[in-house]
């Protein structure tokens, strides 16, 4: 990376350039049918306090029992993030009082997390690979929800989310711009969705991020950081970081100092505001939860999970490039979602992979977006996209017809072969038939033919267009060119 490239990330202040330093803590809800330490369901959207066991409500004498599914999910996530899996980890109690925290403590992992250091490859603003360090992943319980808007003087508590398993994925402070942060979150989301350890549903809160932001003179000492809590969309993450970095730069350039504090992002104003300062920070009094034994994993347990890992996005991108001959950019687009990959691989079977990827990422994604349709509601089956490309490859239809045909397929979900047959859209590849069209055009445009023959070469395109029009787009463009050229001598 050149200096010029790097500078594009800097904020240019009045006195100097400033570099943003970002570390993210992503809270990813573990995909599991029951909670981290109780048998209660994790189903989203249930009536308040429907998914609550005696353990979740912290009734006297109730004890947590570790959910092995959640452990497995954390290990899978660690492997996917090239991280060290710790064979010994400990659940600790993080003590604080809040009405939606029934136990009076959150069970989390403090000194000994289940997953240690790892890394994730992202694409930076210049389209280059960048490795972001992962500090650790630990498992912890989610808290409940306080509802303050249901009654004029009372707050209500919903414990459905209480005790649901979260993975906290802590990055190193390796991110340098809001765009990189966004790219990192997207990539984490993609990876977790791939290996099915988190549904990545940000609107439902399954993936949220706390952003630690500081600024410094380029390559200088790290500045004081502020933590922006609980951001639940990639857009808000970028916005909040940008705002916060600019706020810090302004303070520093005016001779101020940054207070280490926790801040909230106001989505309506796009600003961050102080929530609590370092002095007000809780003393969480972490200590190992005596109700739970330390978690010990065996090598065979870990290697079994390792052997069952599905293909990861980075491996997949490599494979797509070599197997289908598509560009890295296209491979990355396809790899973003598992369902894209499935669709692509089904529709590209025995076809030109480049052609298929173009149809999929430009035409199909375009129509879906235009009509506001989710990918899983896509009206064109992969078989039919495969057929369409087959029709193009064997020259049954022309490129122009193909676009119209695609729109019909999108509207009707019908087989392209069927539509071509019904509407007679086959490309005309018969020389004599094309000659008829060419003759017709020459006859109808005698003046233009004269002009062409007297040297106005540009008119050739006009004749091609006219022939295609007369043939209703069915004439093979190559043959049209060839025959036109021979007749216009």
């Amino acid at each position, binding site marked *: 990376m050149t200096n010029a490239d790097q500078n594009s990330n800097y904020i240019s202040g009045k006195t100097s350039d400033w570099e943003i330093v970002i570390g993210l803590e992503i809270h990813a809800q573990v995909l599991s049918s029951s909670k981290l330490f109780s048998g209660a369901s994790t189903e989203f959207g249930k009536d308040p306090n429907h998914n609550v066991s005696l353990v979740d409500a912290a009734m006297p004498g109730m004890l947590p029992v570790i959910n092995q599914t959640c452990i497995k999910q954390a290990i899978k996530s660690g492997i996917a993030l090239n991280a060290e899996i710790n064979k010994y980890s400990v659940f600790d109690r993080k003590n604080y009082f809040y009405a939606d925290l029934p136990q009076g403590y959150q069970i989390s992992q403090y000194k000994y997390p289940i997953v240690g250091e790892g890394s994730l490859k992202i694409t930076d603003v210049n389209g280059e690979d960048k490795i972001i360090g992962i500090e650790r992943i630990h498992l912890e319980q989610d808290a409940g929800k306080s509802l303050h808007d249901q009654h004029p003087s009372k707050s209500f508590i919903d414990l459905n989310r209480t005790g649901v398993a979260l993975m906290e994925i802590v990055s190193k402070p390796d991110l340098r711009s809001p765009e990189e942060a966004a790219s990192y979150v997207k990539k984490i989301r993609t990876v977790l969705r791939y290996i099915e350890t988190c549904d990545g549903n940000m609107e439902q809160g399954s993936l949220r991020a706390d952003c630690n932001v500081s600024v410094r003179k380029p390559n200088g000492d790290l500045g004081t950081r502020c933590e922006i809590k609980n951001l639940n969309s990639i857009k808000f993450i970028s916005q909040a970081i940008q705002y916060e970095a600019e706020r810090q730069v302004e303070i520093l350039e005016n001779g101020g100092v940054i207070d280490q504090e926790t801040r909230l992002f106001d989505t309506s104003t796009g600003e961050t505001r102080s929530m609590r300062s370092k002095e007000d920070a809780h003393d969480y009094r972490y200590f190992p939860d*005596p109700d739970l034994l330390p978690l010990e994993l065996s090598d065979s347990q870990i290697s079994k999970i390792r052997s069952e890992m599905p293909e990861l996005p980075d491996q997949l991108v490599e494979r797509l490039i070599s197997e289908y001959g598509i560009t890295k950019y296209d491979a990355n687009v396809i790899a973003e979602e598992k369902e894209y990959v499935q669709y692509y691989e089904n529709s590209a079977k025995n076809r030109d992979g480049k052609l298929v990827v173009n149809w999929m990422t430009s035409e199909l994604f375009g129509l879906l977006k235009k009509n506001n349709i989710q990918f899983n509601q896509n009206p064109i089956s992969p078989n039919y996209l495969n057929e369409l490309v087959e029709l193009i490859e064997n020259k049954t239809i022309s490129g122009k017809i193909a676009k119209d045909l695609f729109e019909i397929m999108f509207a009707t979900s019908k087989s392209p072969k069927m539509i071509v047959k019904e509407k007679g859209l086959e490309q005309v590849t018969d020389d004599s038939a094309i000659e008829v069209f060419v003759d017709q055009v020459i006859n109808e445009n005698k003046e233009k033919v004269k002009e062409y023959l007297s040297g106005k070469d540009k008119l050739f395109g006009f004749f091609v267009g006219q022939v295609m029009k007369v043939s209703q787009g069915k004439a093979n463009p190559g043959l049209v060119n060839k025959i036109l050229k021979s007749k216009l001598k």
Partner: protein
Amino acid sequence: MSNLLQFSISETLSLLEKKEFSTQELVETYINAIEKTKDLNMYLTTCFDQALEKAKISDQNYLNGNQRFLEGIPLGVKDMFCTKGIETTASSKILKKFIPTYESTVTQNLWKEGAINLGKLSCDEFAMGSSNETAAKGEVINPWNFEEKRTPGGSSGGSAAAVAAKAALAATGTDTGGSIRQPAAFCGVVGLKPTYGRCSRWGIVAFASSLDQAGPITRNVSDAALMLQVMSSYDPKDSTSSNKDVPNFYNDLGKSIKGIKIGIPEEYNSDGISSDILNAKDMTINFLKENGAEIIPVKLPLTKYSLPVYYIVAPAEASSNLARYDGVRYGARIDGNSLDEMYENTRNLGFGDEVKRRIMIGTYVLSSGYYDAYYLKAQKVRRLIKNEFTEIFKQVDYLVTPTTPTTAFKLGSTQDLLTMYLNDVFTVPASLAGIPGISLPIKLDKNKLPVGIQILGKDFDEQGLLNVAKVIESCASFKDTPNGAAS
């Protein structure tokens, strides 16, 4: 039949089987005994109607020959055990009117085998205390020389007193630092703290999770074996419960102790220890010698650190375990103008002084900046204490010590908290190490108060402990009855 209260569990079971009396008669007799001993303030809640209903079923089972292991045995339950449909308060105002919708695993194990619940027994608030004086509903009076108003010990004071006063045939207790063994010694009954993990903690109000362990309080050693057998179980709902097989403790009782090695730790001594207690220890040593055991003086130099370690670890865990009593979901709530004010009001009025003191100590030792110096160091010393026991059990099979430095003192006489905490000095080490311990009465002291002796053993060797205790019991032949007992 003359006096049904005099029989032990094993005797009662065989008489019920022979239909010498019915379970209903037995339960009625115990209900009567509870009424007669009301002044001792042992029961917080009774469930007589339910007990009589259960007695009918037991009688039917005896009639059909379908009797279960403890069919018809009337028990008292320490108020730390959650009992379905029956108020469970842990002797605290903060849990007033709390009626669990679930039954603790240990009590469920007992009811499944036909035992009958007479009611809930008083204890120190949240099991924090050694004299039963911290109970919200007032102290229990020791049935021995009851007119002198002495402590039954604590925290399972109600349980030990009820068994001694014949207001229950046996009772459940919980032991965190001596809460079964010390009151058993003070009340002249048998108290057994099993190995940590032998009994499930599920459904027992938590005090200090890494130390809490349920166990029986009974009239004699055989009854302790019977009770323990039923109370023990592997419980997947308690991650710290052990999946070791539960032996048939009762059937395997009575083995000879010839050739076994008994260690006598020299550190289990203190300045204030009475000559009666030292004498009881010597008597016990002689009983063991007479039965062919080898007596070996041993050293456990870390013993002196046990009490300070205990008073860091237990309050630390308690401060966190008791955070759930916040007035939000159940138990008492004293409203306030904000959430914090509601917490403060509820916890201020809901908890007694001793509980508050321990929450404060626990919060302090876990605080940032103090954690390493207190909690972490205490845990390290705890591990060393455990190791010291492991090492000593390579040399000897069991340890014999006094259970307490004194016999039952007068209620209200101990103003100094440190003196109070010193009561646990001989019981706390085994709790920290997680090893089993049993206390049984040997004799009466000069004030006609019972003196207890403690036997400690290896992890999960309750069987051996019971065997040794049985030998000592038959030699000591302790047959006295307190003057406060029902008759």
